[in-house]
């Protein structure tokens, strides 16, 4: 290796190191990318799938579960058990979810007709025993304000909103006038009918 090549290589190396060091120094102005997790909670997407919970109606506060058992049927891990009320229709007395079995696939939330069962954004579910991971209806059900928040986050519609929309749609349909039939077209229809009837007679 001649002197010139060695010199060029040395200078090149020094320049590259200087570039690298400049890049590193530029990073000092950025905010830390790490978070102090136990102290500050990570920010999650509203539709991230974590602990399961049951909604109440955000307006009236009544429980949304109608004991249709669709979630129980669709659950791949069979971790949900719904126990319907003995006498009252569309009401569940008890609702068990074993979070130790749950794999947070979110299928139950998709089949739920009343948007009752949802995945919340709370992922801290450590308990002392496995039995504690089986949540009952009292532990699962959210408060009215939490339900309202989740309905907003997940863009669900409440019962009253749905009814209002239904009423609005009906009103719109009623308001729409029946369209007038074109007389020429009506004439053509009559001609066709006559032809068909004639064919029938001829056939007989």
């Amino acid at each position, binding site marked *: 290796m001649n002197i010139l090549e*060695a010199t060029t290589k*040395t200078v090149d190396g*020094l320049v590259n*190191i200087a570039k*690298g*060091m400049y*890049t*590193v*120094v530029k*990073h*000092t102005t*950025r*905010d*830390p*990318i*790490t978070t*102090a997790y136990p*102290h*500050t*909670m990570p*920010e*999650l*997407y*509203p539709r991230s799938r974590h602990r399961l919970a049951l909604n109440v109606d955000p307006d009236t506060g009544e429980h949304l579960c109608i004991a249709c058992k669709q979630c129980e049927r669709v659950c791949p891990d069979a971790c949900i058990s719904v126990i319907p009320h003995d006498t009252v229709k569309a009401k569940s007395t008890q609702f068990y979810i074993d979070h130790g079995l749950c794999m947070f696939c979110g299928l139950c939330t998709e089949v739920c007709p009343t948007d009752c069962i949802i995945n*919340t*954004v*709370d*992922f*801290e579910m450590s308990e002392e025993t496995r039995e504690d991971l089986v949540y009952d209806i009292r532990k699962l059900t*959210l*408060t009215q304000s*939490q339900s309202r*928040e*989740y309905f*907003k*986050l997940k863009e669900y519609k409440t019962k009253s909103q749905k009814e209002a929309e239904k009423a609005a749609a009906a009103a719109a349909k009623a308001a729409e006038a029946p369209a007038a039939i074109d007389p020429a077209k009506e004439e053509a229809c009559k001609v066709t009918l006559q032809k068909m009837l004639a064919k029938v007679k001829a056939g007989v």
Partner: protein
Amino acid sequence: MSSKFINNNLLSNYHPRTKYYHYTALGQAFAFFVLAAVWITIVFSAAAGGGITFAWLLPWVLFKFGVELGLSAEIVRQTAEVLAYLAPTVTVATIIPVNALFMVLCERKFLALLTVRTGPTDVGPNGFLQTLADALKLLFKEDTTPAKADALLFTLAPALFFAPAMVVFMPLLSVASNNLGIFATTNLDIGLIFVIGLASLGTMSLVMEGWASNNKYSLMGGLRAASQAISYEIPMVLALIAIILMSGSMNLVEVSDSQAGGLSMWNIFGNGLIENIPNLFASTQASRELGLLSLGLVSLCVLLFIIFITASTAEVNRIPFDIPEAESELVSGFNTECSGMKFALFFLAEYTNLFIASGVAAVLFLGGSHLPISLAAENALYSNLSHIAISLPLVGDINGLLADVNLVWVLTSLVFITKIYLMFLLAIWIRATLPRLRQDQLMEFGWKYLIPLTLAIIFIMTILLEVLGR
């Protein structure tokens, strides 16, 4: 909620959060400034307290009461003398642990800043007590020795690694304290040789530890440490020789004093020759030649600085030259089997070595303990400070060491420590930037590039200095 992200603090039934404060950038800077001030105060009072206790208080007590207690005058004098000359040791012994704690904290915080993290935040205000907690933890840990290890060497090695670091620290005391009386014994005429000679002793104990651990990773680490030390000692010493040529002295205090009188007098800027560079555009031929020669010498000095930084980074086993403890290859290298205080001693000595390397670089290239102001201004500052002289009651002939104690040492120490910490920050910056070298790359870089380059620099520098008549 308009934000794309949501925070589940409000939406969780089960886990209430305590309030958590995170400092802003300005708050961090202010907190660090306060910490540095507190630390400087602690270090200075500890060092001064230790030094003065041994250099003055104990001899004074001896002289005052020794004879009354029945000791002969000769014994009193000799004991007092020994005590007085122990002052630098005591000072170093008090400075090193406090200093290493602060250095580790600095390193963790600044490395975090450079790599977009936060560093320690939990222990103490803004995590500032983290290293203290670590040190306490290490004190309480069990000190294990592997079953088939050579117990004697295994235990001896950390101490042997720490001892040279402590001794090599001492010549820096006389530089930092502006040749203060109680540190008179540390002002060595062979200062640089002393530093180089003793600093390389530490490597022996790394090999010793690697062998005694009876662990293949430790042994590899020790051998690597030895090969690295041999390879990089040479360019480092050669760089030192070039500086000795320029300063004409091996005494650290004299090298430092030769750079007094402004930024341009620093050795990194050619010891005043940088002022001749505008002569390149002068009218006369002789003037232009002077300018050209000066430019050559100044660029050589900058190159020497870079070489010295590189070689001393390798000497103190830091990234990008930390192959003796390359954690991705050798678990933890030579200290794989160490726990508790053995590990703590290695850790302490490594950071002290880094501090010493930064100190030597500051003395050799960055003007030592001198402010970058003109000589007249500096002398005026010193004379102002020396009005605040401390007059201790002197007894016997030992206390001549304390004849002219004034507060100049505070200023010079502050300047020196600032320069050392600037070099330390540079080392952190290098650590944050460069990846680790492979063993063969390291050897190749040392032997095939650095050593020939430094030899060539010495050769050219000698000629240039002769031509320039310095």
